[in-house]
């Protein structure tokens, strides 16, 4: 628990956690949905956000990715405050987000989808090489419209982007949604490999079991606050309580 508490020394960029949220509040219109979130993701760690539907997991990821600006508090990347920085700028400096429900463009071909990933500053040849090597299926379908592929293949495509842009931070929102258990297991295996390469990963997941196997830390999100942070083993008992809402 102590390892991932937020650090007091504001100036220290060296050794600071890669992603840090300090007392972050966020709202959709007038309705506040995050009520003071404190969270940090150390370098190379996988942190899982767990909690029932509507708890605020996706909103936390939206705030970190820059799609939703916090109403108060600070979001820091590698020790620097990034409040007010737009999502596309964050993407270009090494933050990769896979949004909920397949992060692909359905009316572009597989290759064109990968092309869009190059805006983060890598070459298309590089992206294609990594993507097709990891997922040969995508190589076979490079000229097919992404929207016509199966759900699993679409998720492969979005993962391929995450792998090939070489990010420092990876945000994954509900990776398992609507996919077969085998596919999910396969995807999380890849996530684990990515984290071993030193990428910090923040992942939200409604179905806790699938992610706890690879996460170093987990945070339970309930009603827009983080109620508990710890290692998966520590949290085992509390999970069922969190989901049943007692």
């Amino acid at each position, binding site marked *: 628990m102590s390892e991932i508490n937020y650090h007091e020394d504001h100036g220290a960029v060296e050794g600071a956690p890669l992603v840090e949220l300090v007392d972050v509040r966020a709202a959709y219109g007038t309705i506040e949905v995050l009520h003071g979130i404190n969270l940090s993701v150390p370098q190379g760690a996988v942190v899982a956000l767990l909690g029932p539907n509507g708890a605020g997991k996706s909103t936390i990821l939206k705030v970190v*990715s820059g799609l939703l600006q916090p109403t108060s508090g600070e979001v820091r990347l590698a020790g620097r405050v990034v409040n007010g920085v737009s999502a596309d700028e964050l993407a270009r400096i090494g933050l990769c987000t896979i949004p909920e429900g397949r992060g692909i463009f359905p009316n572009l071909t597989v290759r064109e989808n990968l092309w*869009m990933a190059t805006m983060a500053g890598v070459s298309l040849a590089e992206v294609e090489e990594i993507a097709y090597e990891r997922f040969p299926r995508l190589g076979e379908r490079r000229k097919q419209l992404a929207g016509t592929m199966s759900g699993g293949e679409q998720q492969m495509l979005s993962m391929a982007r995450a792998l090939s842009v070489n990010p420092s931070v990876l945000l994954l929102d509900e990776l398992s949604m609507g996919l077969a258990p085998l596919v999910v297991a396969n995807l999380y295996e890849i996530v684990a490999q990515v984290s071993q390469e030193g990428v910090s990963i923040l992942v939200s997941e409604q179905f806790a079991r699938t992610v706890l196997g690879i996460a170093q830390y987990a945070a339970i999100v309930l009603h827009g606050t983080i109620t508990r942070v710890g290692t998966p083993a520590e949290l085992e008992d509390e999970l069922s309580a969190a989901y049943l809402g007692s």
Partner: protein
Amino acid sequence: MQTFLQYTILGLAIGGSYFIAASGLVVTYTTSGIFNFAQGAIAMLAVFTYWQFRWGWNWPAPLALLMVLGVLAPLLGALLYQIVMKNLRGTSEVTKIIVPIGVMLGFQALATWIWNPTSSTPRQFQKFFGANAFVHFGDIKVSWHEIIAFVIAIVIAAGIRLLFVRTRSGVAMRAVVDDPELLQLNGGRPERLAMISWAGGSFLAALAGILIQPMIGSAMSAGQLTLLVIDAFAAAMFGRLRSLPRTFAGALVIGLTTTYVIAYFPSKWTWASSFRNSLPMIFLFIVLIVLPQDRLRGATVLRLRERFRMPSIRTAWIAGLVLMIVVFCLKVIMERTAVNTLTLALTFAIIALSLVLLTGFAGEINLAALSFGAIAVIVVYHFGTSGSGAEARTTLWGILLAAVVTALVGAVIALPALRLRGLYLALATMAFGVFVSRMVLTERNERDIFGLKFTIFTAGQLTIPKPKIGPFDFNSPDAFLFLCAGLFVVIGIGMVYLRHSGYGRRLAAMKDSPAASATLGMSVIRLKLSIFMMSAAIAGIGGVMMAAQIGTVNSDRFDILLSLSLMMITVVGGIGYISGALFAGIFLIAFVQMLDLTLKKFAVDYSSLEAIFMFFVSAVTVLPATIGITMGKNPSGAVSDIVEGLDQIKQSKPLMFTLIGLEAAIWALTATEVITNWHFVILTLINLLIVPVVGGKIVIARMMRGVPKPIPPELIGIDRPFTAEDLAEMDHALNLEGVVIPSAGTVREEASGVSA
């Protein structure tokens, strides 16, 4: 053979220009999801600006071209996106259609303002390298201009194709349509891409305009060039707003057929030139018909910014009564001409009711309300009058017949469009409207239709007498005023009844989700058809009343641009409200005319300031469009603001009595001729518009004083602990009073019991 080649080349050149305009439409639609109705208006502005530089100020052609195509047109497109179109995200399809139409009408008014169409010297617009720059291929003479037009079209087709497939920015422009947020997460800048594409679209429109103006060979006309866009619409529809090759093919087909019609139709076919002008509309209609069926949507509930409330039936009766009283009071103090203006405004309000019914209640769009009016007027003129000379009257049967015929025509128009929604239906009705203007209302020759000698639009104008229904003669202006007011009230109240009926609820359901309605067993087709017919009939009745008020109408009265203005102002007023229709009629006819007259009066009274007042007279012509453009920011319409203001007044009796008392006093002063009608109008405006808004704010401020800001229920328990009151209220809301909830412990035991 020589004729054939000559016209083929001309057709290819014109088709090529259509393609350039259409490709601009495709580019902007692809990246921003907004169909740019103003494409033709941009082309028109470019043509006039180029004329100004090139021949007005005698600039050399390259400089004028650089200025118009390289600087002004892209700048205009970028600004349009930044200032207007960007705000359209999250608005309904109607708003997305109305705002570009507002831009179109605004540009049109602006051009008429700057380049006075009645100017004494006709504006000459010449081909590139002059009118006599020809190349000879054997016997055939081809102007350089035509060659340039066709070559540029091919270059642009290839260029855009390359852009969209071979460049990252181009692919990103396509990605924006799929998911702008995801593009941002990839590191792209969707706003900038959309702005660039609008700049490009505007450039293409300008280029098309400059190429096509000298080839259509008529004098420069703002209206004609603006409607040129419809030719481009048709071409863009060939490619379903996506495919450029098909758009190219479509543009060439349209360009060639129109020139072949000129070349080969026998000259005794007097309708050939109307037919040529209507061809793009006919193409557009056919293409829309053969378009594959629109998927029934409903999976995602759109969170729209529009909100409409429906008045109760009691409120509707009270409002109707109030309107009749107000009209009576106004009649007492008003001059004859003002009564006429008010009557005309009410007839437009009736036509606008048809739009409220169709768009506000059912979510379908008709951009050619006045064209249905025109058809009703033709029917009444031929079959619905009795007596002659001063004794001529429109009969009740004539009006009813006109309503039936327009309803049937409405059905014919709607039938193919039933499979379509939103934009496509809007375009189909617009094509119909322009078709009526160009083909039907230009029919001044006697024709042999079904063995009947018949002239549709006799001598270019039709005289419609005032109606006489049973023993009631509505020939006097006062009586006709009350007839129109009464008709508005009756139809309005009828619509409120309709909205509260099962049928009305089905309409609302269909508007929200056609898919859900279909799965619940409703016949969406029957529903759409019936509402379209009803709406057309109302527009027809309104059109007859309008013609009867004016007396003698020519085809300009049913112009498509007027239909578009009416639709736009109704949306501004609030397309979901009966009062939105009233607002539209009053604003479009009475208010604009009043401003115009007031300013002109001031210009005469204070002659030293004449220039300034005359400037504002011109500015008034741009006013409705300007208001239409602001819809992106307030999609629920003006009426909703006023209604909210009035609502607050109802909360505060003193304020309400002040308002009514003040208005009664103003009226009494006017009736006794202490103050003039001008003062009455101005004081009333101040009283009715400003008092509610300001007063409402004061009331709210007073009510809010000392009351703590309410916490939204979902935050209770987080921002402050639950009180017994909160819990009781929540139980009440969930209907759980008296239900004993087992404690959390028992739940967990039960749960583990199940798993074991």
